[in-house]
């Protein structure tokens, strides 16, 4: 997994709440057995009309947000299905950071396994970012080490993050390799585990 610390980019304002993983990556794209290449399908039914033509009103299709690495949305981002294809699509499209007032649990967890930084800011702060981002391309610098989002106009937003997951993202750790260091404890647990045959 790619380590992450500083991301400097304009934000993509996705002014919606309860963005579910069915919208992030629609079921017709879940049949692939690869982990990569999902970016082109991100928000497919919002990005394209039924004939496959880009929907000019949708934020991802607006030229001013091209190359953005930071997605900002409203409450309860990533709700619904556990499909990790959702963060895979977000990452593959080019986003490294998602900012929202809250995230659904499984999606939130999945981000940390893929080098995506999910940042929780207050509703007011997200509304402010969304409003500014919708007005004109708005640049911010995300700094994981210092847990700040600094806007180009000098405004600083601070965020909290679980220290364990922070280290995981900063170092790009492979969690499975880390867990193998607990082989002794796992074995010991298995010996005393309650099993009814």
């Amino acid at each position, binding site marked *: 997994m790619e380590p992450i610390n500083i991301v400097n980019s304009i934000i993509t304002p996705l002014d919606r*709440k309860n963005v579910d993983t069915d919208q992030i990556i629609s079921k017709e794209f879940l049949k692939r*057995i*690869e982990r990569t290449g999902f970016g082109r399908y991100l928000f497919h039914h919002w990005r394209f009309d039924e004939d496959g033509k880009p929907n000019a009103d949708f934020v991802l299709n607006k030229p001013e947000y091209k190359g953005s690495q930071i997605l900002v949305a409203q409450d*309860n981002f990533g709700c619904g299905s*556990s499909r990790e294809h959702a963060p895979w699509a977000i990452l593959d499209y080019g986003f490294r950071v998602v900012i929202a007032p809250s995230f659904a*649990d499984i999606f939130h967890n999945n981000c940390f396994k893929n080098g995506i930084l999910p940042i929780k800011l207050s509703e007011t702060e997200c509304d402010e970012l969304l409003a500014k981002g919708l007005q004109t391309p708005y640049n911010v610098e995300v700094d994981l080490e210092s847990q700040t989002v600094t806007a180009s106009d000098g405004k600083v937003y601070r965020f909290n993050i679980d220290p364990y997951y922070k280290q995981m993202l900063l170092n790009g750790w492979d*969690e499975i390799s880390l867990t193998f260091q607990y082989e002794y404890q796992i074995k010991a647990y298995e010996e005393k585990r309650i099993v009814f045959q």
Partner: protein
Amino acid sequence: MAKNIIEKIWDSHIVHQEAGKPDLLYIDLHLIHEVTSPQAFEGLRLAGRKVRRPDLCFATMDHNVPTKNLPIINDPIAKKQIMTLAENAKEFGIQLADMGHPDQGIVHVIGPELGLTQPGKTIVCGDSHTSTHGAFGALAFGIGTSEVEHVLSTQTLWQTKPPTMEIRVNGKLGVGVSAKDIILAIIAKWGIGVGTGHIVEYTGEAIRSLTMEERMTICNMSIEAGAKAGLISPDQTTVDFIRGRRFAPKSENFETAANYWLSLASDEGCSYDVVLEIDASEIEPIVTWGTNPSMGSGVSKTVPSAADFESESDKAALQKALSYMGLKEGQPISSIEIQHVFIGSCTNSRLSDLRTAASIIEGKKVAPGVKAIVVPGSYSTKAAAEKEGLDKIFLEAGFEWRESGCSACLGMNEDIVPSGERCASTSNRNFEGRQGAGARTHLVSPAMAAAAAIEGHFVDVRNYATQEV
């Protein structure tokens, strides 16, 4: 100190605990399906790792499988995904209920059917509806593919202990009101984010009087309330359901197991971080009118109006949902006409669901212009239903009787609802495009779906039932 069941199961599964880290939890049962596992197995292969405990894994094919003309899979990409699971199961020595196998079915239907699901177990699956197994007093939750790989490699997961929530359902349910209506009412009342970050225990008189299949319907949709998991303390109903099932403890060990299971029930006087209460007698059959499961109203009510909401963002969400759904503010729920009926999914495809639906439609005909399908939750549910003659009742009424799978709940196979058309669905999600691009989903109970199939629009099944008797 009095403990709730969530704390008891959590504490008994800690492999390693240290400050500043999540707990390392042992996983007792890992259920696997074709959609969220191929990348995990590929990860193992690339790293030269093996499956630590194949004996604690069980795999089946459900999301992609066709529900007619078996075993032909027309979609080559779906076929490849299904074949990949078969190859992975073989390579890593995991038990598989393949297409056409008598144990095949929706992963959350077969776990309980086979007796794999037991109280006190930690159960995971790369599927958000894993919470279904919580009905047995198991700690069951959905995980992503990276975590699937982690469990395959280590049989453990790093988890931060979430706060607990009690949702107490007091009183008794009215006639014609079902478990599905309880959970839809809970989500309509408190919203799809109410459980976010929490594990929920459902308690109260109305919950205690439910059968295991009804409890599964409730726990199944915990994720629709945002909860990490939802469970119900085991009691005699739980024990009786498990007894004699294939993977249940054998007769000489069963009583010891049953005593242990019952001891896991939440202690008198235990506490929760959050407590919510709802009165079952106030719940009526619910129909969702919007694009998330909290957007539901009682069948006797109307689609809400902007005036019913305070915040601008809620008003905007209403407009967006109604525009997608093709509905008007203030429209009576009973005036909504449907073109499709889907009875199936891990929420409502078990034998009792099929019996309820069959009892409503028996001797009647599906309304003209309505396409209705029944997709039993498993091969064995299908066989049991056929033994009772339920298939004939459905077929005579004009329903299609299909093979088991997830089917039109998410439309990964060919069972999709065309754009702009409406479906009365016993499934769990009404997100935009869930049942097909542009499809309009209304979540309801099996009884409500069956009555809608006959009438062509939603009707109050409470009156419907009485009229018929």
